[in-house]
């Protein structure tokens, strides 16, 4: 028997609302199956189960706010017998839907009222009048603020930058796309991400974490892709197992990830498994991106705009499509030499694009 608990969907998350169960008691579930939807400050997230089994008991009703770690359900693995004794209900925060809505509008944490039993609307209003208002009640802004403050306080960043001639690779891509239908076209952003993942395989030290005073390198590569939401805010969901994808799959998965991010349909693994961050601000015309690392990750790759620029080839000065790629590294985990090797490797890979397929 195992507890299925409210997962932490980021170091900054304290609680979330269980919105909907997608299974009922007695259902068989398989590893990776989405069994619930949870609403966080980053939108609605699909929650997957981590093992095969049977849903023995759902402990939390829909629309209940739960702190991270609260048991939500019991999952019985197939080789276990059904339990004979009933188990006490997990601790949960009860609140009426109206109270929950009001609390959200007013920036009040339901958890801070929970000791009084079921939370109702009047209690929320009374509480909100007593406490001073936060400067902003936008949950996502607060989450970003927390993570970035921690990053700048804890991580000694170093920055390296390289100019890469993209003319040959873009020419290759243009010819490649011309022979395909519009549905099969590859965008430069997907090609760059594929190249970064390939370079990380060669320089794995940048792909991992700094935890408990130690550097842990991750075998899998799950780059967090910074995706801006048009209504404001930023989410960096993971492109899970990007190291196992070819160019077509990278393009397809990236398109899918962007759509689901903007429609609020991400999975919990995508919110928590990032091993490095890739930020592309090129669409907005930015040349250099000096990013802030998302802890406990140890690196961030920033992509600028691909732009026409003067470029020397031998004795000739010509105009080429140039991109500035910047690396922010955690100096506790790696040195500038490692970062330099990575950028050099990335440049070499982009000069041989046919190997990116």
């Amino acid at each position: 028997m195992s507890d299925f608990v409210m997962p932490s969907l980021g170091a900054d998350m304290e609680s979330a609302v269980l919105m909907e169960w997608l299974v009922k008691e007695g259902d068989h579930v398989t590893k990776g199956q989405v069994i619930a939807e949870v609403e966080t400050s980053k939108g609605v997230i699909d929650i997957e189960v981590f093992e095969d089994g049977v849903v023995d008991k759902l402990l939390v009703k829909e629309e209940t706010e739960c702190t991270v770690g609260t048991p939500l359900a019991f999952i019985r693995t197939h080789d276990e017998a059904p339990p004979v004794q009933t188990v006490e209900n997990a601790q949960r925060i009860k609140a009426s839907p109206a109270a929950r809505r009001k609390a959200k509008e007013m920036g009040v944490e339901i958890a801070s009222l929970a000791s009084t039993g079921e939370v109702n609307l009047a209690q929320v209003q009374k509480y909100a009048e007593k406490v001073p208002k936060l400067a902003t009640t936008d949950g996502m802004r607060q989450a970003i603020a927390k993570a970035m403050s921690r990053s700048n306080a804890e991580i000694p960043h170093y920055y390296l930058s390289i100019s890469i001639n993209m003319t040959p690779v873009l020419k290759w891509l243009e010819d490649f796309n011309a022979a395909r239908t519009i549905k099969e076209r590859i965008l430069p952003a997907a090609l760059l991400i594929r190249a970064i993942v390939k370079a990380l395989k060669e320089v794995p030290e940048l792909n991992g974490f700094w935890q408990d005073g130690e550097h842990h390198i991750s075998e899998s590569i799950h780059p967090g892709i910074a995706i801006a939401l048009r209504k404001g805010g930023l989410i960096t969901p993971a492109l899970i197992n990007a190291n196992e994808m070819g160019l077509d799959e990278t393009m397809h998965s990236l398109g899918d990830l962007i759509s689901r991010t903007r429609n609020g349909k991400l999975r919990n693994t995508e919110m928590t498994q990032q091993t490095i961050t890739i930020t592309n601000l090129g669409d907005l015309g930015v040349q250099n991106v000096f990013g802030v690392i998302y802890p406990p990750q140890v690196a961030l790759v920033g992509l600028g705009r691909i732009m026409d620029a003067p470029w020397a080839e031998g004795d000739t000065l010509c105009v080429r499509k140039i991109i500035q790629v910047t690396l922010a590294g955690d100096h506790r985990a790696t040195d500038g030499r490692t970062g330099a090797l990575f950028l050099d490797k990335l440049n070499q890979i982009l000069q041989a694009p046919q190997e990116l397929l």
Partner: protein
Amino acid sequence: MTQEQIKKVIIDQILEIAPDIEEGDIIPEGNIQRSLEIDSFDFLKLLTALNDILGVEVPERDYAKVETVEHMTQYFAQNLVQ
């Protein structure tokens, strides 16, 4: 199909792909990607959807001709006739 009808199809598809945009935000002469924060993925999705509806595929070399709703309307109008 008239130019007005084509324009309506384009605007409908922009609203479909980016539901957080309102029709009033769309300036016919404005650069679609920059003025509406449509990234390269959304832009490709828009062209793919228009290809499904109108049967005209915009090659990458013609992207400069479809940067605004106005120009995109003219582009599709010309290519639909041929």
